[in-house]
């Protein structure tokens, strides 16, 4: 047998999948801008994705901020640590850890639940039923979830930024004994709009990725409970990998131009 054959097969399969995903994305996007819209569903998804993710995101952020302060203290102790720690915490949280950690946590929560919900609808023929009831499933199921993801992620990340910086403050002031007013002043001085904005743009992209992966894998699931299980896993894994990948791409776009 030709040894290149399996490689070719894998490559073709990859191209087919990429094509399917692109078509799905295009179709989903086009339905977000064409009527009818489903404000009721968008609202419910926003609550699901945004409000109910707050505890997870808040806890992740507070510990991330705390550990950042502690770690950078060990590194910077010899120098004037006070300013450096505030700087490290606020920069890392707003630029990187806020969007990435919140994105990954919410990918687990939301990617999985979207894939399971839509996947179950697929295998129980509810998606077919939508089609017979004058409703386009891409428009009714996918578009509202994409919109909700893109709108809610930046808000979640803004919350994560605030809580993360507060976590760093807690450790710096109550454990390391820095002056509270100085620490806050330093934080404020180092904070730039560009850092926060870049984080929020990342968040919107990650929100899109998480919703898209949940919907895509759910929509294409087949074969009963096991198929839905596979779809759920694939949604979370692919969303997480894509988040890290796009994090790099976006960082390069934002911070290497000058």
């Amino acid at each position, binding site marked *: 047998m030709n040894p290149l054959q399996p490689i070719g097969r894998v490559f073709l399969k990859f191209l087919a999948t990429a094509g399917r995903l692109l078509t799905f994305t295009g179709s989903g996007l086009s339905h977000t801008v064409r009527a009818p819209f489903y404000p009721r569903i968008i609202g419910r998804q926003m609550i699901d994705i945004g409000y109910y993710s707050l505890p997870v995101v808040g806890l992740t952020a507070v510990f991330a901020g705390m550990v950042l302060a502690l770690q950078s203290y060990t590194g910077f102790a010899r120098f004037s640590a006070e300013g450096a720690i505030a700087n490290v915490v606020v920069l890392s949280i707003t630029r990187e850890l806020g969007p990435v950690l919140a994105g990954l946590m919410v990918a687990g929560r939301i990617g999985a639940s979207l894939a399971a*919900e839509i996947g179950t609808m697929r295998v*129980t023929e*509810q998606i*077919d*039923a939508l089609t017979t009831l004058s409703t386009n499933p891409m428009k009714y199921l996918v578009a509202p979830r994409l919109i909700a993801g893109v709108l809610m992620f930046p808000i979640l990340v803004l919350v994560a930024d605030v809580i993360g910086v507060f976590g760093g403050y807690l450790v710096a002031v109550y454990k390391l004994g820095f002056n509270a007013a100085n620490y806050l002043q330093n934080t404020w001085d180092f904070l730039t709009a560009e850092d926060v904005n870049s984080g929020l743009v990342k968040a919107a992209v990650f929100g899109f990725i998480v919703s898209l992966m949940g919907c895509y894998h759910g929509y294409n699931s087949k074969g009963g409970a096991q198929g839905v299980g596979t779809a759920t896993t694939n949604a979370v894994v692919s969303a997480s990998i894509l988040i890290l990948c796009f994090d790099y791409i976006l960082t390069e776009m934002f911070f290497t131009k000058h």
Partner: protein
Amino acid sequence: MNQTPKIQLRGVAKAFGRKVVLDGVDLDVGVGESVVIIGGSGTGKSVTLKCILGLLSPDKGSVKVDGEEVVGMGSSSRERVNRKFGMLFQGAALFDSLPVWENVSFGLLAEKRCNRSQAKDIAIEKLAMVGMDAAVADLMPAELSGGMQKRVGLARAIAADPEIIFFDEPTTGLDPIMADVINDLIVKVTREVGATALSITHDMASARKIANRIAMLYQGKIIWQGPVADIDKADNPYVDQFIHGRAEGPIKMAVRA
């Protein structure tokens, strides 16, 4: 019949991987006619309905609805054609995130033919037609028994008064009395409202009652079709075995003792 048939299938073929399910199905359903498809489990009856609705695309062949070719149709025309259809799915396929009444009036609301409070009244009315009382309207589908779900699915299929209705095993899972109520309802929507119906059933009593014509699907083809009255003198060993439910005969079940 020189009128254009409501639905016309010609040489429809569908395979899943290597498994050939439909292998050249030809079938006409006239305007206002009620046709029942019979056939063994897994012969592709549900697949046939899905090919007509565009939920599955046939590998070969032509499907015409009101004389209009629908295979390979663009999605917006497809949506327009699909407004003519109502479908009761074999597994009911109720939306489990919506209460019963919203399920029933889903199509009406989607087409903006009424507001939400009217929709609920219509839903209660349609539920009454399938023998369910108004208290059910606010329950969630998961709170219903299998037979109740089936009847809600039926109410949903007829709620928007479609021109063409597909019933995939409407009486399966119902007690004999309720099954007869449903048969009467199907007869009523076809004879009185003038809808065209294509149904699938394993229940010969139901088939005899609701059908004008019966077609039997076997090994991917329609092997016999004719008026209900002719089925007992069909003189076709396959049909004969099927309607009398005999294990012995030309149809072999893949069962090992």
